[in-house]
């Protein structure tokens, strides 16, 4: 009775049958065969036995400890409290900066600095940047800032955030939206982010690895950072895809920088200045 020909239609469907994924008609066909074939019904029994054991073993091997339960509950409560506090605090600030019109997605796109037509002429004239000009109250020391950009870049400290979706935790410290652009088009792998001091301000430092090179993307509040990098003639202006990017060299590292809507961006790497500028201009 039990021939390969007779078993074949059932054998091919046995998994789906056990998974409850067959149509009613197919179920009837399979069951008709199973009722008269001990080999196939044995296979089904084995399927069930293996699954049952897999379930039991998988659950038995990972019972949440009380400590873990407590830790998770605490984390959830803290997150709820944080979200409530943030909502309360951000309401006035958001309207001031007109960010309440910007959805999180649009903000991500706005990391995306250079996509509007900021003319090069405008960029070259400090007079058109009243906020920045007013903010400069200390001697302009771009060399120190470049040093810091390099120092933070070569610092091997562990990132505090390795989960891209948690980067917004850095936002309160940095004061501007922090997102990690994927930069996949360069084969970049994002490694993590942390907050670093940059002169008298704090910036988010986002670490990438591109073809074996470490690349740091800084995101900072361009209006509070007193030395606005593009204002210095220490930088060369380049135009990449119609967007101005400012590049300089410091101790063998290339620094590319620009800003957009009050958010400053800088890329430090041991790649060439073309690559740094390209990465910045790509952020759309």
């Amino acid at each position, binding site marked *: 009775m039990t021939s390969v020909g007779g078993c074949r239609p059932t054998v091919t469907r046995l998994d789906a049958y056990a998974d409850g994924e067959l149509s009613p008609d197919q179920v009837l066909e399979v069951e008709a065969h199973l009722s008269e074939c001990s080999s196939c019904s044995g296979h089904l029994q084995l*399927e069930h036995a293996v699954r049952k054991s897999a379930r039991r073993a998988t659950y038995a091997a990972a019972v949440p400890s009380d400590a873990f339960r407590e830790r998770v509950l605490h984390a959830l409560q803290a997150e709820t409290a944080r979200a409530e506090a943030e909502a309360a605090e951000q309401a006035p600030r958001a309207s001031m900066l007109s960010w309440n019109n910007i959805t999180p997605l649009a903000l991500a796109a706005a990391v995306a600095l250079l996509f509007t037509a900021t003319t090069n002429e405008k960029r070259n004239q400090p007079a058109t940047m009243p906020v920045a000009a007013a903010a400069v109250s200390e001697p302009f020391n771009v060399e120190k800032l470049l040093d810091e950009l390099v120092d933070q870049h070569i610092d091997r400290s562990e990132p505090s955030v390795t989960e891209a979706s948690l980067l917004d935790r850095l936002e309160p410290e940095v004061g501007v939206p922090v997102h990690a652009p994927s930069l996949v088009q360069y084969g970049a792998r994002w490694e993590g982010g942390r907050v670093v001091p940059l002169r008298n301000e704090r910036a988010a430092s986002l670490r990438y690895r591109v073809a074996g090179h470490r690349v740091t993307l800084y995101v900072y509040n361009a209006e509070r950072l007193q030395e606005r990098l593009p204002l210095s003639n220490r930088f060369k202006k380049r135009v990449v895809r119609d967007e101005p990017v400012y590049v300089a060299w410091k101790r063998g590292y290339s620094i590319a920088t620009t800003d957009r809507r009050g958010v400053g961006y800088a890329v430090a790497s041991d790649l060439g200045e073309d690559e740094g500028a390209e990465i910045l201009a790509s952020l759309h």
Partner: protein
Amino acid sequence: MKARPSPPTDFEREAMAQLPTLLAVGTRLTRNAAEAEDLVQDTLLKALRAREHFAQGSNMRAWLLRILTNTFINRYRRGGLERSVLDGPDADPLADGWIGASTMEAMRDPESRALRAVLEKEILQALDELPEEFRLAVVLSDVEELSYREIAEIMGCPIGTVMSRLHRGRRLLKGRLYQHARSLGIVGPEHAIGVEPRAAAGDGAVIPIDRKRGRVA
């Protein structure tokens, strides 16, 4: 004046109820207890932030498992799960010929104590040795009993791919278990399906079909 802990929110209650599931799946994904705990915590924090995107009435467990999977892929496997050279066009199911009647006799009865101990210890190891894509598919189906469609959504692949991964994963799994059963002398040398069964031929009894997959208690 001590602040009294506030009563748990609905979300917190639901999350804690799903903790065993998330930790069980997370542990098989990461194969590391500490990483699994971090993964589960991140998963629940993400779920908390995104909870307005959860459609009430749909499968909360499947939704959380999806976040868990995505979090795992994003954190540990940027660009997707480890791919396996074994992933490809499906093989002939009849090629699962290593299982014969004697093996089934010995292996299908989970109450057989000797075997159960072997199965449960070895099954985890066998699962952990599966390529990630297979392992995840098998865990979501065999352990979590999600539908092919739910698994396809979680893994971001077509249903046909889910079926192929399940088939291959289960075959590898059973092959592993069989080898262990053999090495322990629980089963003898194998006869392929289609070859005249030895043990089952004699008893001739119709084995009752367990149509519903029982949940583990």
